[in-house]
């Protein structure tokens, strides 16, 4: 019960942060809540995550974005001392949300 309350509060925060609008919120909240509680997604494979990240690093270098490759390498090394059991899952989320970084990422950001 406490878990559902916590998840409900976090879902509300996520809705406010991502969509920011208050119109038609209830059906969207329910749909989001349903997807989040859906257990049909495969579990994160930390080795696959590491492989995808090193593949990205390599791709950045291949397309001439060496600065980006170096920035990613540095940040991943800096993350090592802070690693915990959830780190691969958070990195998995970031990989799922990545939007053509080799083309669109700017180092100035």
């Amino acid at each position, binding site marked *: 019960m406490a*878990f559902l309350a*916590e*998840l409900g509060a*976090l879902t509300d*925060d*996520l*809705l406010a*942060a*991502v*969509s*920011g*609008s208050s*119109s*038609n919120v209830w059906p*969207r909240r329910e*749909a*989001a809540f349903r*997807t*989040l509680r*859906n*257990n049909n*997604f*495969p*579990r*994160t494979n930390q080795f696959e995550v590491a492989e995808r990240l090193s593949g*990205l690093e390599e791709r950045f270098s291949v397309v001439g974005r060496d600065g*980006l490759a170096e*920035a*990613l390498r540095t*940040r*991943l090394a*800096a*993350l090592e001392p*802070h690693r915990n059991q*959830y780190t691969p*899952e*958070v*990195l*998995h*989320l*970031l*990989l*799922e*949300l*990545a*939007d*053509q*970084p080799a083309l*669109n*990422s700017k180092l100035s*950001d």
Partner: protein
Amino acid sequence: MPPPTERAEKQAAAQQAVDILHEIATILNCHLDRRTLSICISMIENGINPEALANVIKELRKQGQDVQLESAEAAAAAVAAAGTRRR
């Protein structure tokens, strides 16, 4: 309960981890601000699958874009209707 200094150190370390993850999110062009990332981390720590979470975020963004498009179309239609009435 850990002493206050230990708690503060743990909090600072957690903040630092979020900072680094936010920088990685920026490098990967994830369009996530720090607040949204913190909410996502809390959800993952509560057992939410990252792929499910990514799907929800993408769907919410798509719905947000659709709403914006609808409002822009409605505003354009209102301007066009006002122009017709004036004539």
